[in-house]
């Protein structure tokens, strides 16, 4: 939150997670909601009133029903329950975010740590390559890649991952370079540890905090990008209940059947909001120096 809170928690004896969350009500709320979203995604088949409607089921007698107790979010042009579809959409969005961020970390972090710790030519070449990727707004490059691939959730995930890893390479590189300069790494070398062992056992673990913070802050961004790709038709395809696609499909009817657009879009907004708040909160607590997010 604010610097004062940080100073307090620095001076206080290392508290439990509970004290940490009590001091940061916003972070606590975001963490609880994030957990709730993950649970909703995991247990979607148990919670959804009409699980079959997440697929290509049709109910010709129930088309365009407005929201009611029976259909909380109304029904779509072929009679599918929108609540079930939006609920299943949570699975897709969270899974895409998890895969993109995991891939970006697996590719970006080792490269970045190697560049930061080794320096020299390796460092220069890697940084120029990331410069090039970062010269594109993420949405733009992901769109360009996705538009030349066959549209699907998998290919959209690949396209976003291709644009996302350089951020992690950059972050890990900066962190590793500063860790590598510290005395305990010099003593590792003096003790005769191999460079590989020094990197893996000592530089890497000490570079991870900002990466964890970035990963939680990025969930919202990835979900927004994936929804944008689907909205433009280069991501998920019918009958996948992806949120961006649902908004796109509802667009034709939204002046009269407002629920078709409103609920899936609100789901995107709320999910991105929760994870952005979570990322901001974690950053304030764990990483006071990096105050500002990326543009």
């Amino acid at each position, binding site marked *: *939150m*604010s*610097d*004062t809170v940080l100073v307090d928690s620095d001076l206080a004896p290392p508290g439990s997670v509970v004290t940490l969350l009590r001091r940061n009500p*916003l972070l606590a709320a975001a963490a609880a909601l994030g957990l709730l979203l993950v649970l909703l995604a995991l247990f979607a088949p148990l919670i959804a009133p009409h699980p079959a409607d997440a697929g290509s089921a049709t109910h010709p007698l129930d088309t365009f029903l407005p929201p009611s107790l029976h259909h909380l979010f109304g029904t779509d042009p072929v009679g599918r329950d929108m609540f079930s579809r939006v609920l299943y959409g949570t699975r897709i969005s969270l899974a895409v975010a998890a895969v993109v961020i995991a891939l970006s970390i697996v590719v970006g972090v080792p490269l970045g740590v190697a560049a930061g710790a080794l320096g020299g030519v390796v460092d220069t070449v890697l940084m*120029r*390559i990331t*410069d*090039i*990727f970062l*010269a*594109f*707004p993420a*949405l*733009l*490059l992901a*769109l*360009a*890649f996705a*538009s*030349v*691939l066959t549209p699907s959730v998998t290919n959209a995930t690949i396209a976003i991952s291709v644009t996302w890893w350089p951020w992690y390479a950059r972050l890990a590189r900066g962190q590793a370079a500063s860790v590598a300069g510290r005395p305990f790494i010099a003593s590792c070398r003096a003790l005769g540890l191999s460079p590989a062992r020094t990197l893996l056992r000592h530089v890497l673990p000490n570079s991870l905090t900002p990466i964890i913070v970035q990963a939680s802050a990025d969930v*919202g961004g990835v979900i*927004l990008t994936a*929804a*944008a790709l689907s*909205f*433009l*038709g*280069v991501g998920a395809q019918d009958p996948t209940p992806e949120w*961006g696609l649902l*908004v*796109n499909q509802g*667009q034709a009817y*939204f*002046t009269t059947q*407002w629920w078709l*657009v*409103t609920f899936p*879009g*609100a789901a*995107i*907004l709320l999910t*991105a*909001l929760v994870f*952005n*708040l979570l990322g*901001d909160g974690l950053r304030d607590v764990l990483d006071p120096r990096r*105050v*500002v*997010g990326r*543009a």
Partner: protein
Amino acid sequence: MTPFLVRRTAHGLVVVAGVVILTFVIARVVPGDPASSWVGPHASAAQLRAARHTLGLDRPLPVQIWRYFRGVVTGDWGVAITTHRPVLSDLGTRAPASLELVGAALLLALAAGVPAGLLAARWRGAAPDLLVRLAAVFGVSMPSFWFALILQLVFFQRLHLLPVSGQYDPALDTTHPLSTHVHMPLVDSLVSGNWPVFTSALTHLVLPAIVVAAYPGGIIARMVRAAVLDTLGEDHVRMVRALGFAERTVFARYALKPALNPVVSVTALVFAYSLANTFLVEAIFDWGGLGSYAAAAIQSLDTPAIVGVTLFIALVYVAANLAVDIAQAALDPRIKLR
């Protein structure tokens, strides 16, 4: 100044070269065989061979890259499949509308974000701070295409307040014909004193500009807050406070000014982001800029057009970054030493 300028420009050129190569990969390498999509599914082997030759695909890869490079530099960006016009001239006619929209949106984002960030920093931890930070997170988390549709629903469908389609009322073309200079209705009508078109263009701009402004507004508010809080911790501000200056003076004269530098650079960064964001917004508002051009190109798998827009925005981005770095080095001599 000069060594810095040379170094920074050289770096910019390396990035531009890399950007061109990356777009080449997207246009020619990723899609598999562009020749087969060029001739269609029912072509004979001979036709396919001929297409490969016409497209230069039978040449070694370095030659292909060199030709692509030469085309980009000499203004041959290929022909758009849907419009049958050179991509570069398509971009030329479409860019002004997007620049008008994004320019208006960034002004709006600055007008809202800078005071909001200051307010949050002044009352850090109190209600205004919490409110601003929540609003900023909302702006950053907003799916712009959905925001556009919701605003249309509220302001057009329900309240009948604002127009939602096009850049100005086309009915005015007969009564008050607009003389075009820069292809931005707002600017054109202002220079030629065409007030009916000017007011029409202004009302048409409101909703799309608000949608595009949401993201940069949130980013700028956070940036201002963080930068002002940073400078407040510096020695010169503590000195001014110790000397007994009023808190208002401390903010206005000593804390805000050094904080403006990062704000300028983040504004340049979000400029290109907002250009890409118009892909999601322009088609909804029937705004004839790059965004609706790109969205249409994506729908019809028009690779030359998609790659052209991508390259264009990336170049704008690199240029904006270069300009900001040079401007900041001119303003702040410490930067040159890094």
